[in-house]
């Protein structure tokens, strides 16, 4: 049995299946499940039994359908003749509100942090950082302790330059976006 048929259908689904009320796809899925599930097969057979018992019941009690229909028609007619209040909402206002919402959202997006589409390299006081997603920041090059650090962005790379306190040499460390 594939995983498609592993979950037990709900009782309502089984009842509709028993009544022949399901569409072809749902019917196929439940048939697939019933092939391997004794419990659901039992439930369906009980629904079949109840259904056949209902069908075996005698005629329904007498209802005056004509009088009932006439009453409904009168109610509808009365409702149609009563004055309707003027609509407060006009369709054009919907479009205006939708545009305003879009504009506000646009300004918000432009001025607030959203998840970047790709990795972002950055140079800050902490050193060279890689940002992935909305909150993950990994410092790739730490600012050297005490030594002044120069940072520079050149195309797809960020560089940090510092003086080695031990040797006095300059070291330039680059990290590339890719």
């Amino acid at each position, binding site marked *: 049995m594939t995983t498609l048929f592993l979950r037990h259908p709900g009782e309502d689904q089984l009842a509709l299946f028993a009544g022949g009320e399901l569409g072809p796809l749902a019917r196929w899925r439940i048939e697939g499940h019933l092939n391997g599930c004794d419990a659901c097969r039992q439930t369906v057979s009980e629904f079949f039994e109840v259904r056949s018992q209902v069908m075996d019941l005698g005629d329904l009690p007498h209802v005056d359908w004509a009088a009932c229909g006439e009453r409904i028609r009168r109610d509808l007619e009365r409702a149609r003749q009563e004055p309707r209040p003027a609509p407060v909402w006009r369709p054009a206002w919907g479009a205006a509100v939708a545009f305003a919402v879009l504009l506000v959202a646009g300004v918000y997006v432009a001025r607030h942090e959203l998840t970047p589409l790709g990795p972002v390299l950055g140079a800050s006081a902490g050193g060279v950082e890689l940002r992935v997603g909305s909150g993950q920041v990994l410092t790739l090059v730490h600012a050297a302790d005490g030594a002044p650090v120069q940072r520079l*962005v050149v195309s797809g790379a960020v560089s940090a330059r510092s003086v080695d306190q031990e040797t006095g040499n300059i070291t330039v460390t680059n*990290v590339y976006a890719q």
Partner: protein
Amino acid sequence: MWLGVAAGTALAQSPQLLEFRTAPGAPLAVVGTDLGDSRVQNRGGAMVLDLHATVTLRNNGAQSVRGVTLLVLAQEMSPGGKGSVAVPSLNVPPGRNFPVKINLRLLRPLPAPAGPLVEVGLDGVLFSDLSFFGPNRLESRRVLTAWELEARRDREYFKAVLDQQGAEGLQREMLASLSRQQSRPRLDVQVSRGPNRAISAAVNALTGKNVSFAFLKLPGAPLDPLTGVAHVSADEAGSPHIEVTNRSDRPVRYFEVGWIVKDAGGREYLAGTIPPETAALDLRPGKTAATLQGRSYKLGSEIAAMSGFISQVEFADGSLWIPSRKALGEGSLLGILPASPEEQRLGELYRTKGLQALAEELGKF
């Protein structure tokens, strides 16, 4: 040559963290490696490689080494998987050893490979006669040569000050330089490929504006900036589109435009430098070219105005043009641009060892 470096205790899970690779016939030899407290950590689906290593190299060439670049590679295509370490402003005579420190954190996806986690290789070494050796994958020839030209320019400047104004004059210049380095306005910059935000293109069209560049024309620059514009929204900018024309009589294969932004308070910052649109540039005399597109920059300050200047030009024959010290001073760029690596080194020498040591150092060249 391949040199495997055994892992320390912090690397029990990975027997080989780092491997150093040099090409056959390289004028530099690896004489020692120290992994220090380098370590590997698994974080999510990636390995974080925290490198604190020192590689000791020996100059086997016939000239003094002026600069070296090492490529440090954990994973070529992963974000944060590739780095490099360069040491400019060296003066290492033939036969002498020198250290290169690698303090860098890299990422590589799990699972760990069978081989080393990080490969370190020589990308290039520049000698005092400006000869170069190395695969040059990172354009180290140009970068190291530009640093060396800046070093010569700045040493000449400080030597001239010493000659003309004596020790007191040199002291004043060094103090001014250190003051500039400390007070230079710094900007937090983030750079990404393509649009930075999910809905930015549509939103920026509504909220942003096009800001034109003002250009500083430095004397002697082989290129003239013609026009420049960038779409700016608050503290974000798309790649500036800058057009330059070659007014020299030689073809150009690379240039950089320095990009300065001014905030609402009038403070100016160097945002970065912008390379040409294509890596295979062939800019003939009289022709125009544009700068690279497709990046987004988020700057730590609202952008009120922008300016640019030609900061570097490489001709087709490999020779380079950089701005003169005088041009930088006249263009008020000394307080905005970072000091050259050599000026930074000399300033540190003066700060830690004094005026006499600085004067002796200048006398070595």
